[in-house]
């Protein structure tokens, strides 16, 4: 019997890479961004914009692709002050979803993280290793969502199909 999962390679998202002190970014971006996720490797979301706290003074803002222009106009990457960095990175990451009863098992083949709920909670988001690549990993309804650098997308799809063959 094969693993009972559904694997979907997703389309583009609007993504912005944010670096700098939270107060500085907040004061520049205003209320376009959701409540600040203070805890390392956690996320927050409102009005379809999600914010991932994935490194020291490092966040990723994510929204649907149709929000890209609007978000960009708010964040104005080229105009922001010297002490913060905002870079549009929508094309950089390719997202996958693995959902279904055996999503945990497929993830345990790919990734060394401990996905037990006490260790990897509902709002967890983190960079980790997935099929020996750097990957952004989080939970989604019914399973997990993760993203790898876009050029590795075909390779990850290939690997996932082997894992669930």
């Amino acid at each position: 019997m094969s693993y009972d999962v559904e694997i979907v390679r997703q389309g583009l998202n609007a993504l912005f890479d944010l670096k700098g002190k939270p107060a500085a970014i907040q004061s520049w971006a205003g209320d376009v961004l959701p409540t600040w996720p203070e805890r390392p490797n956690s996320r927050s979301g409102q009005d379809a914009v999600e914010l991932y706290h994935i490194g020291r003074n490092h966040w990723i803002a994510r929204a649907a692709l149709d929000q890209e222009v609007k978000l960009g106009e708010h964040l104005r990457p080229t105009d922001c002050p010297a002490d913060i960095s905002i870079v549009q990175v929508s094309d950089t990451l390719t997202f996958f979803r693995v959902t279904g009863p055996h999503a945990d098992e497929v993830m345990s083949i790919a990734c060394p993280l401990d996905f037990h709920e006490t260790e990897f909670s509902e709002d967890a988001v983190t960079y980790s290793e997935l099929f020996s690549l750097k990957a952004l990993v989080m939970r989604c309804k019914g399973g997990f969502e993760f993203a790898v650098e876009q050029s590795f997308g075909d390779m990850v799809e290939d690997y996932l199909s082997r894992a669930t063959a």
Partner: protein
Amino acid sequence: MLIPCPFCGERSESEFIYGGPVGADRPDPNTVSDAEWVEYLTVAPNPLGPVHERWWHARGCGEWLAIWRDTRTHDIVEAPDDSK
């Protein structure tokens, strides 16, 4: 190994890239003697015991961190007293 990242907590060694031992501070290249410059570049501590070393959380949050690791056991240990 499990390596403690100050941002992410303990993570599998496979998320990290080894960054070499923490050496002496870089001397001023314009005033230091040749011999001292060469020693700074080429000689690293090689203890049979705790070594201070750097790792890059390359597949994680991107943090460069330093740990003390016992070269005999690979246990991650407290900094020895004389290093503080």
